[in-house]
């Protein structure tokens, strides 16, 4: 089995502010207001038609996200990410699937421990997807927008946190830096692939996935 060549895309952006709100716990003298994360992972595409693109039913993905705390528990965020896979089909036709996704989400964050946060999120997304097939001399390619929703459940462990590293800052300060992991699910409208005057079929890029990365909150 050949390995698909995967591409990870990362970027960073945004600033947000939040009005001071009610404190959620005894460690929250100074709750985090801005949260930034970089993650990468995989998305498993449920549609069997993805077999045409890739030998394995998944593609790599990466994203950068920025969220702002409306309250210590409720956050609003924006993430930008991308995913891609390149492989071959029918021995000598190169395939490529690439998507750039912008997600808006509402997130609930709950401190299990001062440095361990569980979160769940839900929101809409818009995705720009490219599917191409290439013989070396001829290319069939289609780009299209598609809309969808996404959800995620995850954990963040922040070993660099005032509650762990004494003297870092005030133990009541929620500044933290650590790792984040999430299970995701994206439900997207299917893409009708038509190229060269030929209807190649319908591809539904929806599916579950996972993301692993680094998070920073302050």
């Amino acid at each position, binding site marked *: *089995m050949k390995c698909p060549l995967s591409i990870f895309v990362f970027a960073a952006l945004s600033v947000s502010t939040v009005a001071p709100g009610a404190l959620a716990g005894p460690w929250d003298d100074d709750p985090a207001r801005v949260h930034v994360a970089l993650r990468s992972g995989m998305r*498993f595409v449920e*549609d*069997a*038609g993805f*077999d*045409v693109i*890739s*030998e*394995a*039913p*998944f593609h790599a993905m990466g994203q950068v996200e920025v969220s702002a705390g409306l309250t210590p528990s409720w956050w609003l965020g924006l993430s930008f990410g991308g995913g891609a896979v390149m492989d071959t*089909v*029918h*021995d*000598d*036709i190169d395939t490529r699937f690439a998507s750039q996704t912008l997600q808006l989400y509402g997130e609930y964050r709950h401190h299990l421990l001062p440095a361990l946060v569980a979160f769940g999120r839900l929101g809409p997304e818009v995705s720009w997807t490219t599917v191409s*097939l290439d*013989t070396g*001399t*001829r290319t*069939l390619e289609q780009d299209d927008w598609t809309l969808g929703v996404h959800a995620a459940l995850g954990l963040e462990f922040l070993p660099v946190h005032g509650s762990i590293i004494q003297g870092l800052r005030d133990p009541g300060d929620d500044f933290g830096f650590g790792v984040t992991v999430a299970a995701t699910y994206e439900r997207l409208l299917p893409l009708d*692939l038509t*190229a*060269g*005057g*030929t*209807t*190649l*079929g*319908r*591809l539904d890029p929806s599916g579950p996935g*996972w993301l692993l990365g680094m998070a920073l909150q302050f």
Partner: protein
Amino acid sequence: MSPRVVVCLALLGLAGLTACDRPADLDRPLDAQGPFALSHHVAWTLAADPAVALLQPATGRVTFAALSAAPRRVFPEPAGRGLLVIGTDGAASWIPADERGVGQAVRMPLTGDYTAVAFGPDAGRAVLYHAPGSSGGVLSNPNQIAILDLGGGAAIERSLRSFGGEPLGVVLGPPQAVAGADRQMAWVLAERYLSVLDLAAPTAREVVVHLTLAEDTRSIRPAQVVFGEVEGAATFFVRAEGSDDLFALTFPDDAPADEVPRPYLTQLPAGAGPSDVLALQVADGMRVFTADPGSATLSVIDPVTGRRVGVDAGARVSHLLPFRAQRADGEGEGWSALAWDDHGDTVVFVDLDLLERRRGRALTPLVLGAGVYDLQPLPGRRGAVARDARNCLLLLDFDARTATPLQAGRSLGAVRVDPGGDRIYATVVGDDSADYAVSVDVDTARVTAARLPASPGRLLLVPGAGRLVADHQAAWGWVSVLPLTDLDDDRVQVREGLLLQGAFDR
């Protein structure tokens, strides 16, 4: 459930998803063969997921019909009534096609690896054989043939008696009454002899007709079989390269239906090395006409008496194209022929009804500006189209005895004739080095053209769909579809990736 178990299950789940392998056909090359022109469709065969892909060019619809095995060889029936596919499983599958698409494949298991086929005129039967020099493998028998009943799905393989030779070709006659029974005669041509089969009695022992005496070492290679009726008896005229004689085979009035009737062989004088033969009922009765390029002679042969009249054609002639025309003596319509030679610069109009009596006065030569070749008749018309050495398309009008040249820009590609004979289609590389499809109105010699997106490898006429299809030779199917009428750029419909149609809808 302990966290350790949860983690293990999650890892197993991910491993399972990762290990999902796609269907094997997506890892195999498409390995498309085609396109083949059928009466209403253009067809490809695919090896990856064995199937026949059909494009209906008028509607643009692409459909797939599964095959039992990957195709090894594909033979389209000449009239477009179907495909005969020999698969890697050794079986032959006859796939009939009509305006609705392809029908249920008729599968016939075989043991031989055949490389050529001859279809009957009605596509009811076919004979698979080994083309000369194509036998291979460990040890193969080039004289093994397979007689296929395409409608009934039966195949009978048998080995023909050989006298050191192998089939040069196979000719199938039409189903007809011969020797008191309904038969379909087939002729397997070999050096110095031919084998006669009755396909209606496929297990009957063949009859071998030797064309030379036993001690004769000449190379006599039968090349053409022409049917005629002499005094009410079906007669087959066999022309052979290396022989000055024409071999006429007739059959007894009666023979058991389950046996191949034994023919009577008559040798007719046919000039010096005839290269084409016609058998026609003319004013004086059945006559056989031959063209002898070596001596620039046309011969008229009375098959009853064996009398031959040679007429100097005035130019080298090697082919005869018959057509109906008004006789020069005003006695109504009769048979005429256009006689020509490949790359010759003169064609000769021959009044076949009067040739025997008037001889040279029955000939009308037409001197052209350059040598002509690839001459094709215009069906239903007294005319033909040819190419010439000046890179011209030449319209020959048999009534007016004219030849109208149409000059191609840079080069002339494939030439196809509309089944109605009204139009001629060709591919041309223009002065601008671009590829064009051109349509010629035969009545007016008016040319219209449409630019093609790429060089066409093949030009296919699909008369049942009223379309012309130019194949641009991409692995996944890339064609330009044009109407059978005047052309312009807006009328070109380009379709690419046809063989991947619906690929994502698995």
